[in-house]
């Protein structure tokens, strides 16, 4: 009898933990763990058994039952073998558990992302996310045993005290300061010049410098400053991944530019593109202007209007129409009965973009030259005709020399515009076809390639270096051209 009694007692003591749900005996909250986050720790009176489920409930009032609360998350007690165990910071939120050995280890995650702790855990420490910031909330943990018994912990209040981190976008003060300094320097310079002129008696107007001040100021701020800023940027490592943190790197960007595969190819094609276009614009423009200037031609207004159309239509529309015409399913193949894919072929695409730009640029040249032609004295031609000079000689020895003062600046401007003509190539081929890995496309010119470097690669410093190279090329060309041609000087 005594033995039976002892066995019964032992059995009871042995089986007691199986039917006993771990009760939560301690719960603490910490509102300082992060923005919209609260740390929550709870401990149990005994090791947790497999199948126990902890539910975390949130409410804006003290929680006496879960009816007036919202479920935030769950932690399951179970077999963790074969389940992933992300490190701290790897998962969407962090949760640790104390297996009873005094160490806090990251929880495991099952397929739907629920936190799983190993059997026997006696404490869980979770960072609760998605909570309102700066508002008092109440938290409680409900534990449910596999046999359905539930216990709700006491409710604890907390508040995520940390506010959103301070965001500073780009510090603009240095730029405003630089622009202000430039403007102030210009004003001081004008005052000094005004004083020197006054001192030396060089001006009769007291306000001469005041009159030019707005233009000089506008030029300084809108032209000189951006150019200088661009030049400075070309010596920095500015790129889109850390704009605003750039630092001086010397001439590295220029070395990158020179060592780009295809640098000479793209520069060469830019020169071909510019020279062929300008020559064609001037040539066809002159031809058409002379034809329209002929006294024998009837319906000049109609012709002039028709010839102006390419210029009058927004260029992006006409370029897209041209692209459609040249595509394999376009009108060109329909008309010729062919199956050409010109835009996919490097040379074909180069010829096509040049042709389209020639078509676009002729009207401007035609109108400009037409105006210059009309200003030529008619008696000069009448005298030549009386002297029996033939038409070609009149053109060669009278028209061309007299048009020089118009043609030289026109061709110079045309060259600069064409050199920097972006939209035709961007819309027709986007620089393609791209046959060069890590280099410009077959129809890229310098300016379209700079766009790729700046806005596709995000390398602002390198793009600025390319721009400086373009700037230098154009300055050298313009200077040489002006010197060689005596530019705007009229024939004497």
């Amino acid at each position, binding site marked *: 009898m005594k033995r039976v009694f002892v066995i019964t007692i032992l059995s009871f003591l042995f089986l007691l933990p199986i039917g006993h749900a771990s009760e939560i005996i301690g719960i603490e909250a910490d509102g300082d763990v992060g923005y919209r986050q609260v740390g929550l720790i709870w401990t149990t009176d005994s090791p947790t058994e497999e199948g126990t489920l902890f539910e975390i409930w949130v409410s804006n009032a003290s929680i006496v039952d879960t009816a007036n609360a919202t479920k*935030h*998350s769950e932690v399951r007690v179970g077999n963790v073998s074969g389940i992933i165990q992300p490190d701290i910071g790897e998962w*969407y939120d962090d949760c640790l558990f104390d297996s009873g050995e005094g160490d806090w280890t990251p929880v495991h995650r099952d397929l739907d*992302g629920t936190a799983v702790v190993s059997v026997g855990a006696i404490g869980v420490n979770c960072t609760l996310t998605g909570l309102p910031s700066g508002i008092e909330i109440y938290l409680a943990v409900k534990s449910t045993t596999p046999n359905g018994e539930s216990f709700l912990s006491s409710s604890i209040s907390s508040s995520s005290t940390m506010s959103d981190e301070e965001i*500073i*976008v780009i*510090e603009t003060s240095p730029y405003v*300061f630089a622009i202000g300094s430039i403007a102030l320097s210009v004003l001081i310079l004008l005052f000094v010049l005004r004083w020197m002129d006054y001192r030396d008696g060089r001006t009769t107007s007291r306000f001469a410098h005041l009159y030019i001040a707005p233009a000089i100021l506008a030029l300084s701020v809108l032209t000189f400053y951006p150019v200088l800023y661009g030049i400075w940027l070309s010596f920095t490592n500015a790129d889109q991944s850390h704009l605003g943190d750039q630092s001086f790197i010397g001439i590295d960007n220029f070395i990158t530019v020179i060592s780009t595969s295809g640098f000479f190819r793209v520069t060469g094609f830019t020169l071909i593109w510019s020279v062929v276009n300008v020559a064609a614009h001037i040539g066809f423009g002159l031809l058409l202007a002379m034809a329209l200037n002929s006294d024998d031609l009837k319906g000049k207004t109609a012709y002039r209007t028709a010839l102006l159309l390419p210029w009058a239509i927004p260029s992006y529309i006409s370029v897209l129409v041209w692209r459609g015409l040249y595509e394999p*399913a376009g009108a060109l193949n329909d008309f010729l009965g062919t199956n050409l894919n010109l835009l996919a072929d490097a040379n074909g695409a180069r010829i096509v973009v040049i042709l389209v730009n020639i078509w676009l640029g002729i009207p401007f040249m035609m109108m400009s030259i037409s105006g210059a032609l009309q200003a030529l004295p008619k008696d000069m031609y009448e005298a030549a005709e009386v002297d029996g000079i033939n038409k070609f000689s009149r053109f060669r020895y009278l028209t061309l020399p007299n048009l020089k003062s118009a043609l030289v600046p026109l061709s110079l401007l045309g060259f600069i515009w064409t050199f920097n003509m972006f939209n035709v190539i961007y819309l027709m081929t986007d620089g393609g076809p791209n046959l060069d*890995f890590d280099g410009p496309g077959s129809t890229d010119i310098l300016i379209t390639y700079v766009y790729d470097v700046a806005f596709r690669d995000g390398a602002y410093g390198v793009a600025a270096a390319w721009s400086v190279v373009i700037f230098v090329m154009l300055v050298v060309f313009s200077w040489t051209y002006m010197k060689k041609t005596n530019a705007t000087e009229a024939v004497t």
Partner: protein
Amino acid sequence: MARQIICFCIVVVLFLPGCISSDQSSMVDDSDSSIELVVWHSFAAESKEQATFESRIEVFMASNPGVEVKISAIPYPEADQQFMIAAQGGEAPDIVRLSSDQLGKIGDIRVGGQPLLEDLRTHLTPIDRAKFDPRALNAMRYDGDLLGIPASQDCLSLLYNPLLFDAAGVDYPNENWTLDDMLLASLSLTSGDVNGLALPVKNAYWWFGFQSGFGGSLFDQNGTPTLDSNGSADAMDWLLDLELEHGVVETGTQTESMKTQFLSSKAAMIVDGPWNWATYEAGRIPVQQSILPIVSDTEERVAPLVTYKGWSVSKQSLNKEWSTKLALFLSSSEVQKEFAIETYTMPTHVDLYADPDISENVVISGFLNQLMEGTPAPTTRAMAMVYDPLVTAFENVYAGEMTSSEALLLADQALESDLEGLE
């Protein structure tokens, strides 16, 4: 004296802005005052998507009277670029719709040392997160941060015009189709001005699925590019041959022209996404869908790249809690369901996979089946950079300048070099 005063005023006016701090500290939400949220979406103008989106915004504002939402449309392909430029000028919207591959481009970008997008991990509860397909949610993570809430997913599938199949006496595509069956059908269907198939053979996005089917992959498990495999080259050859050798794809077909061909019944099949389904229906094409075929040699199915689109919150937003609330609303089960039914936008909400309105819809369930066969696009910088070298590789092979193996080897080297440059 007057001149001196004027000079003094000019100096003050010029210097004052430079001396004023441009500190734009972020505040906690001020719930007492009216809140204005700016949202950039990238739905096509005057599309059903845009109309559905705008109606949902109205609902949100009606249920939150203190919140005013201002919406702006931006072109989808340029959404990341426009957002980056705006953020660099401190003018980012509160919320922007971005795709998972666009997140890969933005993830590393810093302005003044700060990322451009808010890590939404701290804003979502586990219960919020559990509503979404884990693959979709994971695709919106970049370097651990959760940069968006997934609102939709999509991938390419095989669409066909049954009338052209009937006219040519060819059996419709089915789930047991191999690429050989597809090619044979395309050859039978190509006649006169009708082509058997329409797809842009030089477009890397279309190639990804075939690459996977042929046993290739874009990256290994460490994220190292693996473009130069035999499977990748075979897939490239197979695709280009559709146009260059077999002539079943019209010469020079691009994404826009393939649509036109299918809409005008000049193409019997098209490899396209659900985003164009409504357009084909509106064009009175009795369009049908089938899962992409199996590659006979590998016995693997063509597994198109799955991309996800979602709502991201700007790091510069002064109302992040409300922005997140709106992002969650726009990704909610109700809104996703409406988008799915109205516009065939594939949902990411797990509840909707079992919803009868979704599972019984032939189009949506068909595309969902295709999605399950697809490969989620990795949200990494490398993924965002993979397109450029591949464009060059395709151009070279198409132009006959290189073999596919040579071109892909160079593309792989170029990509690795670009990635090293980032480090």
